């Protein structure tokens, strides 16, 4: 007797390539894909985006002068030809509200990050990031798609297009959300733009199915689904034989992949299968939508060959309009969550030997002003949006270890050394994955588009 369940689970699908049959011609038609990628330093990326823009000035870029001139009017030159999202009039400088500790390699870091301090020996701390946009949505679009408006493919989609998937049972580009709301720029941040839609990020949700429509409908168990798919594909084979359409052949394979994903995705996201020691390390609790859970999940997905795991954690927009977004209450709360989860991720990747191949990126979409925002006279302390400088952390995947790159002026208003534009970050990220950002292109609306638009320089300063 036939056993469709096991036959389906065993069947190999389009060995190795991960592409549908039509895709190869499409690629030749539209794209200029380097036939020989550069030697890659990293195979996978875990990108942790702190939605709203964390006050990196208060985390990684200590400014004694800012403490000295706390509550003093900021220099006039800060205000010349500047637009702020919310600050009005002549704002006052705001000193750091938390103390500082020394981490590995003597790097100073905010006292709210004691665990992370002990991981800096594996990180490149960039203090000189620069962007062009001062509002969340445009800045996020710029960071992830290279242009400040929706419509372009995101970083993960470009990588999926450029490198394909390592795992035939999972998508190449997975998105994980925590913190309670979508990023400002919405789902466009993991859009495939004009690239074929299979490159779009697949959101693994924490409520309901991890992937929309993944779970079998009521009345279907695994074996019924297996019999269903076997019958479906037998009938598709009939059509294929009569009609000869290669799209039918592809659909037969996609049905099989869908069937296998139904098993492999829940297994991949099953955090309960992790030992207690791991949950202690991360501070994770299966079933929650938390940054800790998503860090652990990201490790599990990368382990299974997912190319690009994009985490979005919301709640970092520290304006100081109330206790829900200020430096005294909300920031320490978010800091505690981040400190443990991110440190655990780095520890876990290292001890599993995965940090070599996995590039970890941490950051926001822009920085925050050295001035107190004081919107409508708010007495809560917070900082406004600031595109001129911010810090990011990189680890693994061929980046420097224990290094600090770039510097800002003594009040943390502008970059004074080694400015790294977000386009440079994109170019460097692609380079580490073995792709030339100027050659990874897609022809659309009459021109060849790329992640870095018409900008971007690969920055050797960031690499080991």
């Amino acid at each position, binding site marked *: 007797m036939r056993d469709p369940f096991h036959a389906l689970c065993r069947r190999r699908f389009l060995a190795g390539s991960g592409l549908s049959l039509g895709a190869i011609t499409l690629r030749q038609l539209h794209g200029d894909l380097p036939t020989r990628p550069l030697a890659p330093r990293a195979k996978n990326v875990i990108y942790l985006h702190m939605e709203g823009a964390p006050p990196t000035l208060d985390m990684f870029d200590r400014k004694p002068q800012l403490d000295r001139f706390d509550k003093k009017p900021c220099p006039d030159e800060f205000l010349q030809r500047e637009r702020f999202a919310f600050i009005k009039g002549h704002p006052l400088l705001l000193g750091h509200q938390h103390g500082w500790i020394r981490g590995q390699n003597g790097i100073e870091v905010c006292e709210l990050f004691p665990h992370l301090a002990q991981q800096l020996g594996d990180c490149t701390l960039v203090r000189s990031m620069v962007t062009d946009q001062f509002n969340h949505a445009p800045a996020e679009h710029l960071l992830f798609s290279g242009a400040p408006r929706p419509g372009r493919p995101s970083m993960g989609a470009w990588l999926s297009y450029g490198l394909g998937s390592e795992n035939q049972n999972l998508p190449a580009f997975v998105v994980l959300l925590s913190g309670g709301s979508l990023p400002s720029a919405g789902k466009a941040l993991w859009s495939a733009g004009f690239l074929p839609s299979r490159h779009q990020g697949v959101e693994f949700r924490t409520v309901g199915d991890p992937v929309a429509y993944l779970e079998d409908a009521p009345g279907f168990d695994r074996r019924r689904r297996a019999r269903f798919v076997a019958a479906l594909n037998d009938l598709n084979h009939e059509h294929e034989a009569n009609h000869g359409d290669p799209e039918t052949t592809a659909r037969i394979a996609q049905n099989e*992949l869908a069937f296998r994903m139904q098993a492999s995705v829940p297994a991949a996201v099953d955090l309960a299968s992790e030992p207690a020691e791991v949950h202690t390390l991360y501070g994770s609790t299966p079933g929650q939508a938390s940054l800790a859970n998503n860090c652990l999940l990201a490790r599990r997905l990368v382990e299974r060959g997912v190319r690009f795991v994009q985490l979005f954690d919301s709640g970092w927009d520290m304006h100081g309009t109330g206790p829900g977004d200020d430096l005294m209450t909300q920031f320490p709360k978010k800091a505690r969550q981040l400190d443990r989860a991110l440190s655990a991720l780095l520890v876990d990747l290292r001890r599993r030997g995965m940090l070599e191949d996995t590039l970890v990126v941490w950051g926001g979409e822009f920085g925050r002003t050295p001035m107190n925002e004081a919107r409508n006279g708010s007495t809560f302390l917070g900082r406004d949006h600031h595109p001129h400088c911010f810090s990011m952390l990189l680890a693994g995947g061929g980046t420097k270890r224990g290094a600090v790159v770039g510097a800002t002026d003594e009040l943390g208003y502008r970059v004074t050394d080694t400015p790294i534009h977000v386009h440079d970050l994109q170019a460097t990220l692609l380079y580490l994955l073995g792709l030339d950002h100027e050659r990874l292109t897609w022809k659309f609306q*009459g021109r060849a588009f790329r992640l870095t638009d*018409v900008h971007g320089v690969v920055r050797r300063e960031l690499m080991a």
Partner: protein
Amino acid sequence: MPPPRPIVAAVLRPYPIARCVVPFALAAASPAQAPAAARAPHWSYQRLERPTPPARDDGWDRSPLDAFVRRTQQQHGLTPAPAVAPAAWLRRVTLDLTGLPPTPAEVEAYVADPSAAAAARVVDRLLASDAAAERWAMWWLDLARYADSQGYEKDLLRPTMWRYRDWVIDAFRRDLPFDQFTIEQLAGDLLPQATVDQRVATAFHRQTMGNTEGGTDDEEFRVAAVIDRVDTTMSVWMGTTIGCVQCHEHKYDPFPHREFYELFAFFDQTADADRDDDAPLLRAPTLRQQAMAKVLELELTRLRQQLVVEAEPFAAWCAQQRRAQADFAAAAPRLGPWHALGPIVVGDFHTAHTAAFAPEREGVRLDNEQEGQRWQRRDDQDGVVHEWRGDNSVVYLHRTLHAASAAQALLSFGSDDAIKVWWNGELVLDHEVGRAALPDQERVPVSLREGDNTLLLKITNGNGPSGYWFGLRATALAGGAVAALAVEGAPAGTGLLALQQQYLATAPALAAVREAIAAAERELDAQVGPEVPVLQELPADRRRVTHVHRRGNFRDPGEVVTADVPKVWPPLPAGAPHDRLTFARWLVSRDNPLTARVIGNRLWSELFGAGIVTTLEDFGTQGEPPSDPALLDWLAAELVDSGWSLRHLLRTIVLSATYGQSSAASAAAREHDPDNRWLGRGPSFRLGAEMVRDQALAVAGLLTRTVGGPSVMPPQPDGVWMQIYSGERWQTATGPDRWRRSLYTFWRRTSPHPAMLVFDAQSREACVLRRQRTNTPLQSLVLWNDPQFLEPAAELARRVLAEPGLADDAARVAWLWRQCLLRQPTARETARLLELLASERGQLASDTKAAAALAGGDPGRAAWTVLASVVLSLDEFVTRT
């Protein structure tokens, strides 16, 4: 600061230049090549002439276009594929023209008489149907980047935009000539005596995104919207990608930087400016609403004539009123002082209004603490608004009324915001409302009993000031009327008029008429129609001056430009004003070489899965050249010469022999021409996102055939509308709206319906020039597990078992197959489904839970649900072959 970036110099390394053409700008830049004037212009810029079809006589052709195709086939060593079977042709043409499958009965009728005349009748019937209007509206709405929300961060809803969508449907229903279709959408507001509908059409260019994010510069996003209008217009009509020219000279096509801003200037003079409310808006009742309003106005006139004062009942009413006034005077109510408790602060307004605090639960205890506060005496004067402050808070007010004898009385209140009233312990008023307090907002008739009466008020405030107003009188009668009653004898003069007015407004005898009038007025109010964002030209004294934006930066204005079309194309007519209307007319003029070619190519692509020019959006030097230029020009000329009738062109194409070829092909034939560029076989491709779902609903008999109206919310997974700021919820339709055609599904830009996205629908943030067509595992999951496909499967299972005259399971399989795929199953196909039926029946007989989920507990029907779901997931089902 980051180092300055050489923007222009860094623009993209060149990629291989299109094969057959020499790019203008490169030629101009390269003196080594022949002067530009010596060569013919780029093919798509050449004047459109009608080519003569090659002479032919082998009897294959059914349309002049077949002669062109046959010539191309011969050039590539191809012979035409055999004609597709009549049933398959009918499925193909019905899906293509209406987006829905034919019924088995329609198939039967056509198979019985597949003559050319019958085919023509079929096509005419299909093209005249509402379904065809909806299907071609779907096509256009992608190009129009239609959506029910603004886009960007907050993505506020645009709940009235359906009015434009319905205009598009109506335009296709009327076969509105494409030139007029163009003019009304781009400049309907500028037409002399523009109708409401012509102005609604201009919402085409109000589909641009709007940004209401904090701190954004409205001008920045207004400029972004105008740029989008230029890009969209150029792409949709002219097949020209000009977006890159906003920053620099075009690298390949002949468009200087300045000319982008000359086009920009056409669209730079409208009043919209990225306002949060999408102003300017046009109140735009639908034709149905306009007709309903006329009917209701007549009805109201008729009803109002029934509202008259008749002598006898009026006299009786006056007597009754006199008694009430006398009783009230005799009762001589004495009002005690107010006592107040509060404000009691609560988390939110609704909770504050509904929660019962101590005075409600325990009764008023003036001498005790209640809710941790003491009652305070207030010496408020009646008939005046009294105010206090406290966001999301409750204040209770209490007083006693002493009456010497029993009487009727009228309590009158104003409140800011919500109010509840208890009279002698009984709740007599409960109104959750947000407003400022004014006199006499609420009236409550009560009975005064002899002795003490108690009055308790609860005033709940949202935010800002709070307060109340109080008055007491005998009845609703106002001053003049009361005075008239006080005079002995029959009332007269102005007093009589006041009394008559009161009689008409309150007499119980007239209650039915008053209610009918109120109902008709409410219904009339509902006919005012939606307010739609439209284009509206600025008045002459407020017109903008358009500059070149240096390097695309609107804050860096360069030279001043005036509206004009690029020099490479024919000029605007001499003497015509350079405005949107002239520009729209120019787009569809006979001299414009592009629009007819571009639109003809788009229609061809909808029917063949790929255009004659595969780059639908780019007819410039970087686009693909046409596979058959003569065929394209013939189609374009046919479109123009038919008076721009899209319906005529569709009819011509689908009745051709080329379209009627079988799409089956051998591996060798596919290898020879994998993309079917030379049309040696019929077209075959997967249905679009909307059609995949609509077809499943249609074959199951579930599809709701209501045309138009506000967008609807069919089932989608929980949590898709996780939004940043707004409280809007996806409210899944439970009635017939659950099964409307997919073009009516609510389209929110940041969160489009996930099943639609999986089938390659786009978020419509910009004009979707060409949808990708992918084949992914996520599509399988939608077909298997989305209730939008399982409900049709269950319905098919119910029907196959209820269908009379089906002798056995094989006959039922054949019915199911025919219902969905419109052909008889082969013996092998039947056998395979019967095998599945047997195994599922066996399994489900002992699995009551699964049987319950699949078919309400009937294991036999549950097995058929599984079978139907298989059929709805077949490649053949989601493909039009």
